[in-house]
């Protein structure tokens, strides 16, 4: 059974692998294949294309967050999953606008998705903290950190870009920045917990 399932999901597995790497080809493919479905869903339920864009973007991020969990396993077709997540997100938004009342039946088939949405929200929150911390960090620290940890640039490049006399100086500077960032991050985390 497992083998058949793997074959069946071969395309989906490839897509998921691509998504993990953040490959733009995969993202393009996702949009081309699944976006129309979501547009239709949202248009049929009193939404616009702009809403659909937002929802689809969130849907891909939910999938991304889920895929990055170590225990991730694809239990349904990707299309089904994406449709369910989009639907759930859209219903939530309608609910927020007070235009729709959920009934119990909706929860029943959305329990698994609800969990994934939880993970997504948690990740969102953490990354929001990180963003805040980076904002408060200020230049040039922010740039140094982003360049080194996110863009994966070498110490030498950074040294040249910011005009440090040698790589060790740059390294020191980066280290100080990192320490500050860490402090800010946990501070915001505490603030959020208290607030």
């Amino acid at each position, binding site marked *: 059974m497992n083998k058949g399932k793997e074959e069946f999901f071969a395309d989906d597995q490839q897509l998921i692998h691509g998504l993990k790497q*953040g490959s*733009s080809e995969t993202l*393009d493919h996702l949009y*081309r294949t699944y976006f129309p479905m979501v*547009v239709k869903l949202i248009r049929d339920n009193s939404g616009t294309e702009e809403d659909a864009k937002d929802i689809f973007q969130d849907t891909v991020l939910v999938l991304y967050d889920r895929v990055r969990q170590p225990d991730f396993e694809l239990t349904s077709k990707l299309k089904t999953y994406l449709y369910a997540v989009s639907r759930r997100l859209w219903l939530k938004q309608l609910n927020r606008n007070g235009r729709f009342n959920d009934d119990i039946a909706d929860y029943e088939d959305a329990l698994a998705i609800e969990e994934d949405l939880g993970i997504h929200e948690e990740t969102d929150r*953490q*990354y929001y903290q990180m963003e805040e911390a980076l904002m408060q960090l200020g230049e040039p620290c922010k740039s140094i950190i982003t360049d080194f940890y996110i863009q994966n640039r070498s110490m030498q490049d950074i040294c040249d870009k910011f005009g440090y006399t040698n790589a060790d100086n740059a390294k020191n500077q980066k280290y100080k920045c990192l320490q500050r960032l860490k402090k800010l*991050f946990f501070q915001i985390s505490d603030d959020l917990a208290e607030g």
Partner: protein
Amino acid sequence: MDFTKWADAYLEGSLSEEDRLKFESYCAANPEQYNLLETHRMFLEQLRGYGKRKLLKNQLQEISAHLSAPAIDHLSSVDEPPVISLWTRFKVNALVAASVAVLAVLTTLWATGYYSSVKDTSTQYSALRRDMNNIRRNVKAQNMAIRNMNSSTNKNGVYNSSHYSASGFALSPTNYIVTNYHVIRDADSVYVQNISGDSYRAKVIYQDPIYDLAVLQITDPSFKVQTNVPYAFKQGIADVGEDVFTYGFPRDEAVYGRGYLSSKTGYSGDTTSYQVSIDVNPGNSGGPLLDSKGNVIGIISGKQTQAEGAAFAIKSNYLLKSLSNIPADSLGGKFSLNRKNILNGMAQRDQIKKLENYIYMVKVY
């Protein structure tokens, strides 16, 4: 060099082999410091994860920004033809419109009395009074008017302008005539005409819508009243298979028709009438139905439109019952029902010769 710096370098993998081993053994010896290392590792992971996700988000935003509205329309309309998308968009409107239309039609039908006439149109029973042809009458009147113009005389032509005509027959005394209620219903005035063409004015003195019976009285002083009629009225029920005949006015001339009694009940099981297999036409209503001995056994009242040879006649005993209900003060004098039958034993043509003077055409205006 403080611990986090070491940790940082360790995690980056930029320590020399010797330092790395040293650091690892140091961490193993100090669990507290090890925790710090782990926190730092997780923090870095989070930082990297944040970076990746941000990149992904940017990519997504870029892609969706490039999706212009027409491209989306194209994408989303690939899988369905325009008719279907139109349908899905206007489904609700269409349904509402349809239900309004249905409601409007039903209301109109109800308001115009369609439902009250359904019963009339669905019944196969047809009362046999004769509807005079309006058009022909009008044309005749016009022709007469033209002729009068040419000859410039101002004679008033006598022409038949009755709305309905049917048959009737005399009781005793003979100035009482019985016919069907449906014949004289809504009548302005009623005239009766005998076989020789003499016309007399009559008034309705009794009507019984339940048995579809009516009694007229000839009020014309020129009418010669006789005490008795040649036929008798049967008190009981006639037998199925009995030979019967009728004499009435389906046209302006009296017409004889014969047949047999085919059932003891009438239209859809009506027990007050017989079913008779006899040729009758509009105008025969109100005519007598007699058996071969010359007893009146019924009054022709109608026929079934979609069945062959199914005419109906009201039973004579119901006629008797109905007549006995007539309040005495509505009658000028007393009338009795003849029990003496002088037609018995005669040949049919002689019976008719005797009978025909007591049969009338009832004209209703």
